């Protein structure tokens, strides 16, 4: 992944943006702020800091853009990430690039509509062009609300079959939940950076951190609040901490007599409860270092 590719990517349809940039006064409007991100990856700063960055793309399949909003909800943290650690080389909403380029990490939001040829092509292209594919959010991981789709909606009533991306391509890392949290997305981005660009020690940390999320990706594409019963309580592992109830975005999980009670009709199948459970996965190596890792994240996120 050379600088050349990146420059090429930037040149596509970039004129309008650079023109606009010259006219634009540094304003307070959010729209202006987005345009200002551009100079970060153009000429003046291109020389040194960029060379060590990883390239990240956001691929939008059938999702609601909530995952992307969550990424952006890192606020100034997002600017720090784009400034120091990652170039956003593809993102229909934030970067003016029309075709999926080569990249280190693809954050894929949404499930894939198998009745839509373009989506099928793009998910394949994503796998071919990205070194690491991350399923971002419940839809990409487990189908989430798109599991309940039965077609018949305007303006594409024939679109009724939706699959989590893992049913079509090999996925490396899962970030479950609806929406995934800004902090979880940030942590995965930083760990991906350390994995690809860090020293041996940092690589070991990133591997240890990402392993459980890779295991989730390997475990399959089905999730439900029922996992708390089948994989935790039935297995004699529940400690009644309540993490699942806190994690559930639709309040389908309540704690009754110290155990989760799942309102199954409310569950949207996002996978947050099970992934948050300390008895779904727990790494003493990673969590035992919570203080130093937290300090590290705070340190590297300084603007």
């Amino acid at each position, binding site marked *: 992944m050379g600088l050349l590719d990146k420059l090429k990517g930037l040149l596509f349809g970039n004129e309008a943006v650079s023109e606009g940039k010259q006219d634009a006064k540094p304003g307070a409007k959010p729209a202006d702020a987005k345009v200002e991100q551009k100079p970060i990856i153009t000429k003046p700063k291109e020389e040194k800091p960029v060379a060590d960055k990883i390239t990240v793309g956001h691929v939008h399949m059938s999702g609601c853009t909530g995952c992307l909003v969550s990424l952006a909800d890192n606020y100034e943290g997002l600017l720090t990430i784009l400034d120091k650690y990652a170039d956003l080389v593809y993102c229909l909403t934030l970067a003016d690039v029309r075709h999926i380029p080569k990249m280190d990490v693809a954050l894929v939001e949404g499930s894939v509509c198998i009745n839509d040829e373009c989506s099928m092509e793009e998910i394949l292209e994503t796998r071919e062009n990205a070194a690491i594919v991350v399923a971002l959010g419940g839809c990409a991981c487990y189908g989430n609300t798109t599991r309940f789709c039965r077609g018949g909606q305007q303006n594409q009533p024939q679109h009724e079959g939706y699959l989590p991306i893992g049913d079509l391509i090999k996925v490396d890392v899962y970030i479950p939940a609806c929406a995934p949290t800004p*902090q979880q997305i940030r942590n995965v981005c930083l760990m991906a950076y350390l994995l690809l660009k860090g020293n041996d020690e940092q690589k070991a940390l990133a591997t240890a951190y990402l*392993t459980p999320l890779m295991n989730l990706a390997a475990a399959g594409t089905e999730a439900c609040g029922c996992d708390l019963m089948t994989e935790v309580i039935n297995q004699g592992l529940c400690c009644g901490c309540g993490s699942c109830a*806190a994690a559930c975005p639709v309040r389908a999980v309540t704690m009754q007599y110290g155990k989760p009670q799942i309102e199954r009709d409310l569950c949207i199948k996002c996978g947050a409860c099970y992934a948050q459970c300390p008895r779904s996965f*727990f790494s003493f190596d990673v969590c035992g270092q919570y203080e130093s890792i937290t300090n590290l994240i705070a340190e590297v996120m300084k603007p």
Partner: protein
Amino acid sequence: MEYLGQYKAVYKAKSGCEDILAKAQDGGIVTSMFAYALETGIIDGAIVAGPGSEPYKPEPMIATTVEELFASRGTKYSVSPNLALIKEATRSYGLDKIGIVGTPCQIQAVRKGQLYPVGLRDVPDKIVLALGIFCMENFPYQGLFQMVEDHCATKIENVTKMDIGKGKFSVYTERGVNSQIPLKVTHKYEQPGCHVCLDYVANMADISTGSVGTPDGWSTVFVRSAAGEAAFNKAVEAGWIIAESMDGVKPGLELVEKLATEKITKNQKYLEHRAHKDHAALKPLRNPYI
């Protein structure tokens, strides 16, 4: 000492406040730490095991004042899913600095939640004081109820205090110790999830505390993190907590380590047993640890 985790200091300590001690389980450390932290703004709310709808059934609650905090004093030997309120505290209550008390597994859940905030938006940096309590095992409420009503033949609403110590489960009423049963009898009522737990003294807490190791009326306190150390030292300085050296204290750290070793080696064996390596016909049960 590997089973006791990393710590900066260990003390024999108790509350400096008579009101707290009057209703404390042991040294009243958790209540004193949170009361001090609330009074001085180190935290603006604490998630604690408050009184529930039935006697001795804990219900997690968010205490934002010392009065609310006092309602939760004393140990309830049943599961209080304190983590369930962790997002509620930051969202509905709008708290920026949260204290939380929990058993070792709950503190593990706190740390996992901070590093893997899958569904805990904006929570990680708002947890500023996680207090852990020593824990051998816990009981589902129905189990506790049976222990008290059937084995100890005591109406649970008449109970004024329950205690586990010196190998016995004791139930107190207005008349003093009403009934004692050997801990052996209580084992079958333990929560199954406790049997895979590999932590006795809340190794990942900012401060962990429990009665084991120090004389009656005192608590053993491990100060572990930088945040825990800062808060604890200030609380001692302000007189909310009286802390003394553990040197020469009987039974001391030796007993803490003995019990930690007992619990953890027993549970490690159980985890190995769950793998069903000796039974070709049995599939392994799931192991949560990686």
